């Protein structure tokens, strides 16, 4: 178990290293951030001074090693645009994204898994066909378009919900969240539903496929022959068996939603990290890009690790071995 963790962590370090090199080379290839940001009226002298001040006149490898050196001293650098530490910039926006994503994956799981189970249990019923049709819509219709429709319907026409923004936040346990106020919920519910549709569709289809397959399996027939109630068969035997693919996909989706919820965040003007990273890319704000991507890599590695641990718990055949 310990060896396994060490293996996983060293993998993460390699990925972070490779990724940071790619970002540096990428930004370097696009050009000089100063030329993107600088005011058109600046003189050549001002421009030269700035390039020197930010160390952009140095060869790429030296810029990179300066960065790595600072990181080892715990300093990810200051944003070029905001001139505040990158970590505090990202962490000022991260809670909003986490909150949105958590609500949306909860909605997706709470509706998606039972709906998928039902659709697999009674594959020929009208309800099952309806659920499957809706699930296709869920992951084929573009998110921003559904978002706009939701806004037009519930904010502009009916006026029930606000069209965007985060709403009031209140202290809950040790952090501030809008989930602690009614006003906050009225802001979060629409973007969360919007963000959950794709995942919901995916979960429905995965659960249904697993269910249909399991219904014909030996162990189910055997359980039936023993006279077990269907409820017991579905919830204590089938659900456990089909959980592995569902959890894998769920984990990956959780990660990618956290990292790239940008479309929904933009449409609903949600103050999360997605918009921050897109703007940093447009302005070539390299410190923010690198640090954000490093955090995303760490996040993915952590989620994968948790998923693996859950596997081992669910399926006694899975053994976690060192380094593999």
């Amino acid at each position: 178990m310990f060896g396994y963790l060490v293996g996983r962590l060293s993998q993460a370090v390699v990925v972070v290293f490779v990724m940071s090199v790619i970002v540096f080379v990428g930004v370097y290839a696009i050009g000089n951030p100063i030329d993107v940001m600088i005011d058109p009226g600046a003189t050549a002298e001002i421009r030269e001074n700035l390039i020197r001040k930010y160390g952009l006149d140095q060869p790429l490898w030296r810029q990179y090693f300066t960065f790595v050196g600072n990181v080892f001293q715990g300093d990810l650098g200051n944003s070029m645009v905001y001139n505040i530490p990158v970590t505090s910039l990202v962490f000022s926006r991260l809670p909003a994204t986490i909150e949105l994503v958590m609500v949306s994956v909860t909605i997706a799981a709470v509706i998606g898994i039972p709906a998928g189970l039902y659709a697999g249990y009674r594959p020929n019923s009208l309800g099952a066909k309806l659920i499957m049709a809706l699930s296709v819509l869920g992951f084929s219709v573009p998110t921003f378009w559904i978002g706009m429709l939701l806004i037009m319907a519930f904010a502009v026409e009916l006026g029930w919900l606000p069209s965007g923004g985060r709403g009031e936040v209140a202290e809950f346990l040790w952090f501030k969240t809008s989930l602690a106020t009614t006003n906050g919920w009225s802001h979060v519910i629409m973007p969360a539903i919007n963000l959950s549709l794709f995942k919901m569709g995916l979960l429905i289809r995965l659960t249904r496929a697993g269910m249909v397959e399991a219904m014909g399996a030996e162990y189910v027939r055997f359980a039936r022959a023993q006279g077990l109630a269907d409820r017991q068969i579905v919830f204590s035997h089938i659900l456990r068996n089909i959980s592995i693919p569902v959890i894998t996909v769920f984990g990956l989706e959780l990660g990618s939603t956290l990292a790239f919820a940008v479309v929904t965040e933009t449409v609903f003007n949600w103050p999360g990290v997605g918009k921050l990273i897109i703007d940093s890319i447009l302005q070539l704000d390299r410190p923010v890009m690198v640090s954000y991507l490093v955090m995303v890599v760490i996040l993915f590695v952590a989620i994968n690790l948790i998923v693996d641990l859950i596997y081992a718990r669910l399926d006694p055949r899975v053994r976690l071995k060192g380094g593999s």
Partner: protein
Amino acid sequence: MLKSTLRSGIAAIALFAAAPTAMAQELMIGLRAGPDSIDPHWSTLGSQAEALRHVFDTLVDVDEKLQLKPGLAVSWEPIDDTTWEFKMREGVKFHDGTDFTAEDVKFSIERIPQVTGPMPMTLYTKYVDSVEVVDDLTLRVSTKGMAPSLPNDFTRLFVVPSETGMEAGNEEFNSGEKAIGTGPFTFVSWEPKGDLVVEKFDGYWGEEVAWDKVTRREIPDDAARVAALKSGQVDLINYVPATDYLSMQNDDSVETFVSDSVYILNIAPVVKDEEPQPIKVDGKEVEGNPLQDLRVRKALDLAINRDVLVNVVLEGLGTPANQLMPEGFFGYSDKLPKREYNVEKAKELLAEAGYPDGFEMDFTCTNNRVPGDAVVCEALAQMWSRAGLKVNAQALNGTVFFPAAQREEYTMTMSAWGTLTGEAAYTYGALVHTKDPEKGFGNFNRAGYSNPEFDKVFQEGAQTLDAEARRELYEEASYIAMEDRALIPTVILQSVWAAQADKLDFTPRIDQETRAYAITPE
């Protein structure tokens, strides 16, 4: 059971959402962009200056047409070739109650080089050599050489108290600790990309402000901004997209305000001996650079139907341009005629220049800097094809376009240029004057254009302190550059604001700033 819970839940949410809208004298503005910091000396970004004006005042102010008017300084005059004297306004107080004096201005000028970032404010102090406080209300600025445009530069000189201290940076300003100005509002709160909240300052020296509290909310997405207005979350929005502007004409619940902007889409043909991307006839690269021939540049100009660009391509939100600045700006030439559209004449000129069957060339533009840049780019390529040219238009993201344009990799480009200072030296000095890093001219002259006649007149203007004489010289310089088609202006872009009907009234500004203190409730 489930149904009824759901219903009461939605009802509760609906009640809650409907409640907190109508409070007396509060203004909610939805803006495309906001500041990057509360430190007024950090960046030259337009949306930064616009936001910080609410808290801080500038030494010199500008009216709706960008012409100078008194700000914290009531008057200014040159006392010799290299010295300007500014007289300060009396009785102005900072938000913390201290008096405003010339000492604060001196401190602010000296603070800029210490704290400014990658969009450097040193741009506006580049002529300053030294600053001398004569008395509390008099300040003398010695300049490096003659600097007739110093008062224009000081329209961006925000004044902070001299007690601020050189070590205070963005974090102290963002937290509000150092966000102390003389402006019409006091700072309440802000975070990057979030709301800027300000409250009325009772001790303000200027006209009384109508709003007790103003929230400037950043909503970068166009559709989301329009939705926020339509759902009543905000009272006013800027940068309304053309399509929404059209639909708003039939909507009684919103009111629109339209104004010309400072931004003009200009075409820059490279006139260097060797063009960066080859120009071809029948697939073979031509000898020399056809764009060096004035007849070719004139032909490109004649083939542009500016009325179609305005009325069809930009859906009415534009004005045909015949020079690099809008009318009324310092140095705008009245002598220049309206640009002509004549495809036949364009073909004749091309034939005269030795290209009866036209040629093939690349044309590169931005696609995300200003509304309509990409569509105008493609429309232009089609217009030129009618004159027999094959133009490969490519609209690129600014992140890619600007560094490559800086490296001068394109043969012909189009991008927007805004005369943000309201006078000709800024625009013609950077775009048209021969490239001369030593004197700081021609920094954005990526076309390699060089015209001794223009340079002479322009430099004479730059060395003339008398405003009227300088204006005439700049007008002549504009005339020379435009007749020579150094750059080809196409359209002045317009900008649209939209507000809840019967809620407020304001005069739109040509610099597109949304100044809450100039807005009055209806």
